[in-house]
C-alpha cells in the first residue's frame, strides 16, 4: 500500500462533501462523528463548570461566585457531564462506529433511526443549554424533591424536559444495538466469537431500554408537580418525597453502569491488542457484563441508607450491592491475567488502559465502603462519595473513552496521531486525576459535605491539593483535543492495521468504505485469535476486503 493509492481510494469520509452530506447521513460511521462533535462540546462545557467549582473551592470563603451561582455550577456540571457527555460518549461514538464493523455488518439495523437519535440528543441538549442561558438550575443533578418540584425558583422544568428528550436518544440507540447484534452478525460470527466490546454494548443497551423510560417518567412527574401542582412528591399535597428518590435511583444507579460497561468493553480490546493475547477468561468477562447489567437494577436503594427508608430494605440493598462488586472484580483479575506471558507494548491506548485498571480498582474498592451500611452512615453525601464516583465515571470511564478514541483513531481517520504527545497526555491525566480526587476521600471521611459553597477552614489544605490537581487534569484533557485535530491533516497515513490488532474492523481499509466491507466476511476464528497467523475471517473473493 502506498500513499497516492490511499489518497484516491473512495471511503466514507471522501464519498461526498458538504454540510448537508453530514447532517443527512445515514452512515453509522458519519453519525459517530456527529456524536463525537456533540459529546466533545458538552465535555468542555461541563469541564468549564468544573473549573469554576474548583476555583471557588480554593478558599473556604465563598469569594469567587455567590452561593446561588455555585449551586447552579455544580448542577450544570453534573447534568451536562452525565446526560450529555458520559452516557452517550462511548456507546454513541465508538459503539456506533465499531459495532457494525466488528460484527461484519454494513450498518446498524436502523440507519435512519440512528440519525434521528442524534437529532433527539441535540434537541435535548438545546433545551438544557437554553435553561443554562436563561439563568440555570440549582437543584443538583439529582433533582431531589420537594426542593426541585416546589422550592427551587430556577429553570427546573426546562432542564428536565431537555433530559427527558435526550433519554429517547439513548432508548433508540440501545434498541438499534440490540437488533443489530442479534440479526446482523456476519456468517460464522457466533455469540462467543463476538469481541467483548460488543458484549459490553449489548449489556449497556439492555439498561438503556429498560432504565431510561423510568427516569423520563420520573422527571416528567417533577415537571408536572412543578407546573400544575400535582401532589406526587410534595408531602403537603399528600405526596411522598422518598418516592422520587426510589424512581430516580432506579434509573440513575444502572446509569452508572451505562457509563462504565462500554468502557470495560474498550479496555478488553486494548489489553488484548497491546499484550497480543486473547482476553483471559473470555466467557467470564462476557457474562460479568450481563451480570452487572442485571444486578445493577437491584441496588438503587444504596443511595438511600440514611434517607429514612426501612432498615430491612437497606440491608437487602447493601447485600445486593456487595454482589454487584464481584463481576467487576472478575473483570479486573482477568485483565491482569491477560498480561501474563503476553507481549506488552506501551502505546498511548495501553497507557490509558493500564491507568483505567488502577483507577477503576480504587473506584470499585471505595464503592464497597459506601455499600457497607455502618460506614455509609458516616460518609454518605460527603466528598468521599464525590471522590468514589469520579474515580468510576471520570477516572475510569473517561480514561477508557480516550484510550478507545486513540486506539481507533487511525481507523476512523486513516491517520496516526503523535504518539509521544499522546503518551504524555495519558500520564498527565492519570497524575492530575489522582491529585484532584484522592484528597477528596480524606476530606469526605473528615466529614466535608458535598455541595458546600463555603466550608470550614480546616478543610482548606486538601481542597487546595484538589484544585491543583484539577489544573493539571485540564492540561491533560486539552492536549488530545489539540494533537488529534492536528493529526487530521498532518498525521502519518496509518494503513489498515497499524496496531497489528485482531478483529474484523482491522480487516477493512482505514478509513473504511461506506459499506464497511466490499465482501461479507465469513468468520472462522474466535475473537482475539492472536496466536493465528491469518485474519479472523475469510472473504469469498479469496482476499481480505478492500485492499
Amino acid at each position, binding site marked *: 500500500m502506498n500513499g497516492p493509492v490511499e489518497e484516491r481510494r473512495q471511503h466514507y469520509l471522501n464519498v461526498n462533501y458538504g454540510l448537508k452530506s453530514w447532517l443527512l447521513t445515514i452512515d453509522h460511521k458519519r453519525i459517530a462523528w456527529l456524536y463525537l462533535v456533540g459529546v466533545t462540546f458538552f465535555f468542555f462545557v461541563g469541564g468549564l463548570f468544573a473549573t469554576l467549582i474548583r476555583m471557588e473551592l480554593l478558599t473556604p470563603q*465563598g469569594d469567587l461566585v455567590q452561593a*446561588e451561582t455555585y449551586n447552579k455550577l455544580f448542577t450544570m456540571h453534573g447534568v451536562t457531564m452525565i446526560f450529555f457527555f458520559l452516557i452517550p460518549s462511548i456507546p454513541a461514538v465508538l459503539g456506533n462506529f465499531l459495532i457494525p464493523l466488528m460484527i461484519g455488518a454494513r450498518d446498524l439495523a436502523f440507519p435512519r433511526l440512528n440519525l434521528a437519535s442524534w437529532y433527539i440528543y441535540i434537541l435535548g441538549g438545546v433545551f438544557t443549554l437554553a435553561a443554562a442561558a436563561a439563568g440555570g438550575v*440549582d437543584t443538583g443533578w439529582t433533582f*431531589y424533591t*420537594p426542593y426541585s418540584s416546589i422550592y427551587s425558583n430556577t429553570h427546573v422544568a426546562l432542564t428536565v424536559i431537555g433530559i427527558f428528550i435526550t433519554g429517547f436518544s439513548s432508548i433508540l440507540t440501545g434498541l438499534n444495538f440490540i437488533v443489530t447484534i442479534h440479526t446482523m452478525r456476519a456468517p460464522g460470527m457466533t455469540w462467543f466469537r463476538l469481541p467483548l466490546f460488543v458484549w459490553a454494548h449489548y449489556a449497556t443497551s439492555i439498561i438503556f431500554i429498560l432504565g431510561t423510560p423510568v427516569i423520563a417518567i420520573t422527571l416528567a412527574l417533577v415537571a408536572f408537580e412543578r407546573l400544575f401542582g400535582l401532589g406526587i412528591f410534595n*408531602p*403537603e399535597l399528600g405526596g411522598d418525597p422518598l418516592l422520587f428518590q426510589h424512581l430516580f435511583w432506579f434509573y440513575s444507579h444502572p446509569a452508572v453502569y451505562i457509563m462504565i460497561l462500554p468502557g470495560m468493553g474498550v479496555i478488553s480490546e486494548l489489553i488484548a491488542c497491546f*499484550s*497480543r*493475547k*486473547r482476553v483471559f477468561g*473470555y466467557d467470564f468477562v462476557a457474562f460479568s457484563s450481563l451480570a452487572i447489567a442485571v444486578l445493577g437494577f437491584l441496588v438503587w436503594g444504596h443511595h438511600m441508607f*440514611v*434517607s*429514612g427508608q426501612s*432498615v430491612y430494605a437497606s*440491608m437487602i440493598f*447493601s447485600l445486593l450491592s*456487595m454482589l454487584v462488586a464481584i463481576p467487576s472484580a*472478575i473483570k479486573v*483479575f*482477568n485483565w*491482569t*491475567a491477560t*498480561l*501474563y*506471558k*503476553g*507481549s*506488552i507494548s506501551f502505546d498511548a491506548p495501553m497507557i490509558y488502559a493500564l491507568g483505567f*485498571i488502577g483507577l477503576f*480498582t*480504587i473506584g470499585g*474498592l471505595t464503592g*464497597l465502603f459506601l455499600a*457497607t*451500611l*455502618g*460506614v455509609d*452512615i*458516616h460518609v*454518605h*453525601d*460527603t466528598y468521599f462519595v464525590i471522590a468514589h464516583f469520579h474515580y468510576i465515571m471520570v477516572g475510569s470511564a473517561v480514561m477508557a473513552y480516550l484510550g478507545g478514541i486513540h486506539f481507533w483513531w487511525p481507523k476512523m481517520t486513516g491517520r496516526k496521531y503523535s504518539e509521544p504527545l499522546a503518551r504524555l497526555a495519558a500520564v498527565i491525566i492519570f497524575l492530575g486525576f489522582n491529585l484532584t480526587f484522592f484528597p477528596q476521600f*480524606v476530606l469526605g*471521611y*473528615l466529614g466535608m*459535605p*458535598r*455541595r458546600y*459553597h*463555603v466550608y*470550614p477552614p*480546616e*478543610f482548606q*489544605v*486538601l481542597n487546595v491539593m484538589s484544585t491543583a490537581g484539577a489544573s493539571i487534569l485540564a492540561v491533560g484533557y486539552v492536549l488530545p483535543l489539540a494533537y488529534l485535530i492536528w493529526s487530521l491533516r498532518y498525521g502519518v497515513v496509518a494503513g489498515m492495521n497499524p496496531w497489528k490488532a485482531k478483529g474484523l474492523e482491522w480487516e477493512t481499509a482505514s478509513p473504511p468504505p461506506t459499506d464497511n466491507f466490499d465482501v461479507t466476511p465469513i468468520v472462522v476464528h474466535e475473537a482475539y*485469535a*492472536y*496466536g493465528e497467523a491469518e485474519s479472523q475471517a475469510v472473504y469469498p473473493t479469496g482476499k481480505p476486503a478492500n485492499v
Partner: protein
Amino acid sequence: MSTLGFPLFPEQASTMAPRVDQLYYFLLGVSVFFATLILILIVAFAIKYRRRSDDEQPQPIVGNLGLEILWTVVPLSLTLVMFVWGARLYFITFYPPSDALEINVVAKQWMWKVQHAEGRSEIDELHIPTGRPVKLIMTSQDVIHDFFVPAFRVKNDVLPGRYTTLWFEATKPGAYRLFCSQYCGTQHSGMIGYIIALEPAEFQTWLSGGAAAVPMATAGENLFRKLGCISCHAANDTGRGPSLAGLLGKAVRLQSGATVTADENYIRDSILEPQAKIVAGYPSIMPTFKGLISEDGIMQIIAYLKSLKREEGAQVKK
C-alpha cells in the same frame, strides 16, 4: 493535626465513632491489599513481558477455571463479612436505647431549631450531656435536610411530612461541628452549627439557665386547650373522640381493620390528616389542623401526650 498539616481522620467523640472507624480500618486494609496486589502484578507483568521485538507472538492462554473460582469466592466472602459487620452497626444506629434523652429538632431553610423537653430552645446549636444516649426526633418545615455530626459518625435525613430519628452518645465534652448534608437550596453550606457536649452536671446547669422557659409538655397542654382538642379528647372515654392518655407506644385498632402503633408519626398524621386513620368505634368528625399549628406546636402536643402517659392515665387537668 497530623504532621501533614491536616488531619486524616476526624475526632472520635461518640460511642459510635470508634466502632465505625474499626470497620473503616478493616475496609481500608482489604482495599490496600487488593489495590497493591493488582499494582504489583501489573507492574511485574509489564516489565517482565514487555515487547522485545515487533513480530513477537506469545502463546495464547484461554483461561483457568480454578483461578476464576478463586477470584470469585475470595472477594465474595470478604464482601459478605463487610455486609454483616456493617449491617450490625446500622442496626444499632436505628434503634435508640429506651432511656435516651429525647430532643426535638425542626429543620428549615437554612437553620436548625432545637427544643428541649424542659423548655429551652436553641438555634444552630444543640447542648447535650456526655455519657447519656440522646435521641433526636426530627422533621423539616420545607425541603429535605440532613443532620450530620462527623465527630459522632452519624447522620440521618430530615424530611418534611414525617419524623425521622437519630441517636448518639457523646463520650467527651467539646464542641463538634453540625452540618446539613442533604442539599437544601441556596444557603445549604450555611446550615451548620455546633453540638455542645457538656458534663452531665454542667448540662443540668445549662438546661435550667436562660430565660424562664415553659417546658414543652406545658406548652403542649396550653395548645391542647387553645385549639380545643380537649373538648373531644377528654381524659376518660366520655368525649366524642378517644382519650389520649397513655396513648403513645400503644397499638391502635383502626376502622379499616388495620392496627398501627401510636408513635410520633401517627400523632402528627392524626393532627394534620385526621381522616386518614380513624380509630375503630369513633365517627370521622375531626377537622384538620393543617395551617393552624406549627411543627414546633405539634412536637409540644406530642410532649404533652407523652407526659400523660407517664402519669399513667391521670385525669386531664381541667
